[in-house]
């Protein structure tokens, strides 16, 4: 078993040299597979995104720039970015804490807790928004009112993005080799020291990936945010709501223009996460 592990490095499959026989068969069967996949992707993602981009520039660069630098657009984009970063940070920490409790702790009902984390996926965003407003708005039972505030927006975003932050960290934490931690502890390192110098560096990429996903989801979120934010233009109106408003008043190129900004942001972010993943793959040698 060990020899096999030494001889072939599974993680490096994409970089491994293949035999001529393999290459040939890959070409043959790889012929229709990738084509179908790319077709599916084109119909569903590439073409629609291209259409939005085209629509955004249908009035030329000048019109695009004008639409994107509208004070209301800028206010909405700025608010969206700030809240999304906030929620990415908050949920990264919370996600780590929750993942830790799920992996390293041991108590009754742990599996149930784990199931709960995926619940935000199952709830339609409008229901989530309505519920959060009812609970944490002016009529809420907890006597706390975050409607119309940034905290309210962050709350709604936290609800929908928590699963990302937990599920990226959880498996990594689970696979963490405890021997190193225990060795460090037995050599006199404090809890904090162990955490800081051994655990955190190992899970940092996962946390970053989770934060990135949370951010990506947050910048586009609409249904759950729009009620609790009160949607005040220039104050608590998020980018997706602004886009929706523009599409309502039939300013499709304007809506597309701001959408392009969001898409570009997301693409940059996802490419960054992808690069991070690949780097981690490559440097993580046996």
């Amino acid at each position, binding site marked *: 078993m060990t020899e096999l592990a030494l001889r072939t490095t599974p993680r490096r499959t994409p970089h491994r040299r293949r035999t001529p026989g393999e290459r040939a068969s890959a070409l043959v069967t790889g012929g229709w597979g990738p084509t179908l996949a790319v077709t599916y992707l084109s119909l569903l993602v590439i073409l629609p995104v291209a259409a939005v981009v085209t629509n955004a520039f249908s009035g030329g660069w000048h019109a695009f720039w004008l639409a994107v630098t509208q004070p209301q657009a800028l206010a909405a984009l700025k608010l969206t970015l700030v809240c999304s970063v906030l929620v990415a940070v908050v949920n990264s920490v919370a996600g780590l804490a929750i993942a830790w409790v799920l992996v390293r702790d041991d108590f009754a009902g742990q599996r149930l807790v784990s199931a709960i984390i995926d619940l935000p996926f199952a709830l339609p965003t409008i229901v989530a928004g309505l519920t959060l407003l009812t609970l944490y708005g002016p009529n809420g039972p907890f006597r706390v009112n975050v409607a119309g505030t940034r905290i309210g927006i962050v709350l709604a975003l936290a609800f929908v993005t928590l699963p990302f932050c937990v599920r990226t960290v959880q498996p990594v934490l689970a*696979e963490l080799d405890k021997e190193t931690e225990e060795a460090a502890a037995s050599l006199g390192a404090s809890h904090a020291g162990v955490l800081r110098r051994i655990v955190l560096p190992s899970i940092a990429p996962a946390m970053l990936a989770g934060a990135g996903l949370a951010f990506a989801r947050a910048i586009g979120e609409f249904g759950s945010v729009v009620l609790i934010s009160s949607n005040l233009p220039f104050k608590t109106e998020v980018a997706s709501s602004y886009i929706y408003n523009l599409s309502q008043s039939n300013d499709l190129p304007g809506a597309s223009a701001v959408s392009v900004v969001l898409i570009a942001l997301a693409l940059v972010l996802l490419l960054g996460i992808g690069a991070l993943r690949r780097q981690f793959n490559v440097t993580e040698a046996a």
Partner: protein
Amino acid sequence: MKKRRANWPRLSLRAGALGYLALLIVVPVGSVFYRAFQHGAAAAWDAITTTDALHALVLTLVVAGIAVPLDTVFGVGVALILARHRFPGAWLLDALVDIPLALSPVVVGLALVLVYGHTGWFGNWLAARGITVIFSVPGIVMASAVVALPYVVREVLPVLQEIGTEQEQAARTLGAGRVAVFRRITLPSIQRGLAYGMTLTTARVLGEFGAVAIVSGAILGRTQTLTLFISSSIENLDPVGAYTGSVILALIALAVLGLLALTSPRERRSRWPSRSPGSPSASAPLSPSTA
């Protein structure tokens, strides 16, 4: 072997994490259930068994029944391509697959209309063939498939990357055909990731609202999905209908999650390369299972 640590840091962390979960997720979701049954089970039953509600439920299930398999097949296919082949632009494909995660549903709807709508890029081509996509069931299926596109890929790809190809190669050198290799070696090894990916896909498809709202036209009894029905119930001041519909959606998603927990082994695949040597498929079950 866990080292016994001081109790209070662990307990306070546990309290903090669970408290956060409670306030953020449990209480809101719980209140949805509460409000659905606030006026009794009979009222909830009535609200969910109106003609429109039932139509919406059936439509939602039909849409899920088409979109989820489509995304699953695509997801496994792309994961295989990305994991097993090396080609220029792989990084771009990887990012493109993830784009729907970040796309605002409003943008997805807008984009689909711009391409497949009456006045869209393919508008005339489709109209000439009598195919309606937007404002019809195919449009809803597409919108749902788009928003849930990444999940299967993201769950299966890391597993494929981690388990490597030795067993598949071994099988092939022993004479097994590609399909047999896939069916008997690849598929079982990605089973966990695949199942979880399918669960996420299903949940996402069931709960999609924004994009579907734009492409469906909300034609009662024809293109009104359950989420649209819920939204309409909210607007028409029928909270019982809205919350009951939400409960149905949550229950379906929970059922799928539950099936997953029941039918799969306890171990959970890592998404990142394992640091332990040896063939990963033979490694011992890892820490506490997750649903």
